[in-house]
């Protein structure tokens, strides 16, 4: 009888360990950058790169079906690579893009836009990175698609490439 109890105890412990390790192996231990997708964009206030007195609040109160938020900087090389895609999105799909200029020198940022074109409807300044943190940003570049209700429907960390471009186009259709 005693050995039966011992056997049952060991068996129970073995099964318990198996369950714990099985779920530990299966669980997602990687960083999930999509946590904020499906939630409302937190409120942020930005002052304009072109005119610091002019301020706007996001989520936008304008009645747009969708709009884009792009975090960029002139010192960020991948931002240069993705820039033509932003220009294309603005020209071919008439989507409003709100830029957040991340920890940049104003003169360099203005120079960047003069040389590569300005696809942005509005460019706000994030001089200390706090605005990007507020919306769950990791760094530059980063792109969000926001719907009319202010919900984040798409988020991409890293530069836009042709695949991401297609995904954005499919989202805003």
């Amino acid at each position: 009888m005693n050995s039966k109890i011992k056997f049952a105890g060991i068996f129970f412990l073995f099964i318990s360990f198996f369950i714990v390790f099985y779920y530990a192996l299966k669980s997602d231990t990687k960083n999930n950058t999509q946590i904020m997708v499906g939630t409302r964009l937190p409120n942020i206030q930005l002052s304009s790169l072109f005119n610091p007195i002019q301020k706007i609040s996001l989520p936008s109160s304008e009645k747009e079906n969708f709009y884009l938020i792009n975090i960029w900087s002139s010192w960020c090389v991948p931002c240069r690579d993705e820039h033509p895609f932003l220009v294309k999105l603005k020209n071919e799909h008439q989507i409003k893009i709100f830029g957040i200029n991340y920890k940049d020198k104003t003169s360099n940022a203005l120079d960047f836009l003069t040389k590569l074109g300005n696809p942005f409807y509005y460019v706000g300044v994030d001089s200390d990175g706090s605005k990007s943190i507020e919306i769950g940003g990791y760094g530059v570049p980063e792109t969000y698609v926001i719907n009319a209700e202010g919900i984040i429907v798409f988020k991409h960390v890293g530069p836009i490439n042709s695949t991401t471009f297609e995904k954005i186009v499919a989202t805003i259709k």
Partner: protein
Amino acid sequence: MKNFLFLLIVFLLNQQNSFALFSQDREIKIYKNIRCLACQGQSLNDSNSDFANDLKKVIKEKLNNNETDQEIYTYLTARYGDWILFDPPVKKSTLLLWFFPVFILVIGIFILYKRTVFEKSKLS
């Protein structure tokens, strides 16, 4: 009277220092529990990356606004998920992780107790 005033000033200055040390300890304790998501396996406290420095600034501001540790963690997990915390919060999916070791400990104590009682009864 002069001596008393001198002692009072020393005491107050010392209190101020302890408070500063306490708030610095709290700040570091929070930094140590936050994973730098832009670095490999480093805490916010160990990292000097742009992302870590930005987060430190935001946390410092929240501490100055008298927000609790829990409020700060809630703010961060809402934006970056539970992965940003080194100590996972107690919730349904982590119940097993938190309480399984306690359960094993209780079983261990029970077995130990049983054995001791058994040995004692055998001796008597």
